[in-house]
């Protein structure tokens, strides 16, 4: 039986998962959105 994760490890895993989601889904989506808009330099 796997050893239960402690609170620190759980937070670490949750953080890594969230970072993974951001890296794999949210950031590409944001980049796609930003790429579609043709903006003036001062807009960003």
């Amino acid at each position, binding site marked *: 039986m796997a050893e239960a994760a402690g609170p620190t490890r759980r937070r670490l895993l949750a953080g890594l998962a969230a970072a993974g989601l951001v890296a794999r889904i949210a950031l590409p989506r*944001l980049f796609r*959105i*930003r*790429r*579609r*808009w*043709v*903006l*003036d330099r001062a*807009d*960003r």
Partner: protein
Amino acid sequence: MILDASTFPEGHVVRARVCVAGSGPAGMTLARALALRRIDVLLLEAGGPEPDDASQQLYAGRVEGDPYFELDLARLRCFGGTSGHWAGYCRPLDAHDFLPRADPPRPGWPIGRADLDPFLAAAAEILEIPDRFADRPVGSDLLRTVFHVSPPVRFGEKYRAFCAEDPHLRLCLRSAVVNLVPGAGGIRALEVVTEAGDGAQRRWQVEADDFVLALGGIENSRLLLWANATHGQALIPPAALGRYWMEHPTFSVAEAVVWRDPDGLFVNDQAFFALSPAALERSGGLNLSFDIDVMAYPDQTRALIADLMCAAPALGQAVMDAFGKNLVCGARVHAQCEQLPDAANRVALGEARDRLGLPRVVLHWRKSAADRAGVTRAVMALAEGFAAAGIGRLRLLDWVLDDRRPIPVDRVMASWHHMGGTRMGNSPADSVVDAQLRVHGLGNLHLAGSSVFPSGGYANPTLTIVQLSLRLADHLATRLAR
């Protein structure tokens, strides 16, 4: 005067000074302009007074290449021609549309805008539109362009009484030209078939000093290809015949948030833009018209601005605030584009025959990678021009950003504009008619209509067609007066 050609005996010959075949905007304008000069004109119309299925069926053909409209729906075979279902948008070609270009390659016209300008006022009067097109510069790279919209003039309705009453014009309906009869240095006669109500066919001929074919942007090529097939390839210069056929492809290219300006950017929630000549040169030279249409529903605009907030939060918030005060709207951006002339895009004759014995049309039509690249560059120039001029911001569609991505089928079509096939030029090696619209090598055969366009710009062609016909009327009147 309207003649009933179904009563002509088989082999009958009608004589005229000028015979004009086709009663659409090109042929009707020309025939009327000659008749008003008291020149005896015989006007032939293949169809009847109104559209009917039996007549339209003779326009059926096949398209190979990109998706396109059914050929028997894309034009009208009846009195007044395709003006019977046009939308009425009018604009002259730009001066630079007439110029040659090296890359991407495009031949120039053997005439310039200055050769057609003298006929603008008269053409505008015929089409019942103003004759001034006051484009307005927006920033350094954009023009807010003007189209005028004809009522639209239906040439059959407008000139029916003229054709019935004018003493110098004779009109024969249901009289289709099915071949040319060569003579010494030119054309001796046209072979005509008239279908009577019971389907019986009468074959007769027209002899004239001058002949003008104004059959349409596909049929001019079709008849001349058939003439070459039956009389030998030397009759009509074959090198460019049927080739360099063009449309105005249309694309959905972007969505936009646009500030509603106080000095009338939009008319009826629509605005047209084009690139300035300098920006056009930088973007590669393909001339496009951008049609900006205000979104119908606020939720569409709100979603668009929410998307902008992800890309540029401060700007997005400012735009959302302005939207709440009705100072901003969402819009869709469509492009109507010049298509590069390509010899592979052509009108050809198929194996199947219609009931008059003419081969059915096979239209080969594709948009090239160069066409697409030109659109992409121009859209980028428009988007940057919008941002620089502070008009708004564009969100480009994914196909514009990635040229490996196929263009979604619902984002692309065409404009029902048929151009080329018998283009104008200085040499029979790469054109069919000369600067006076006379077929190279044939002294008395001229062509009218958009089939003579060497390039198409983006402007809807009817106004240019009418200008060219008025110019041709001047030329023929001068010839006949000699």
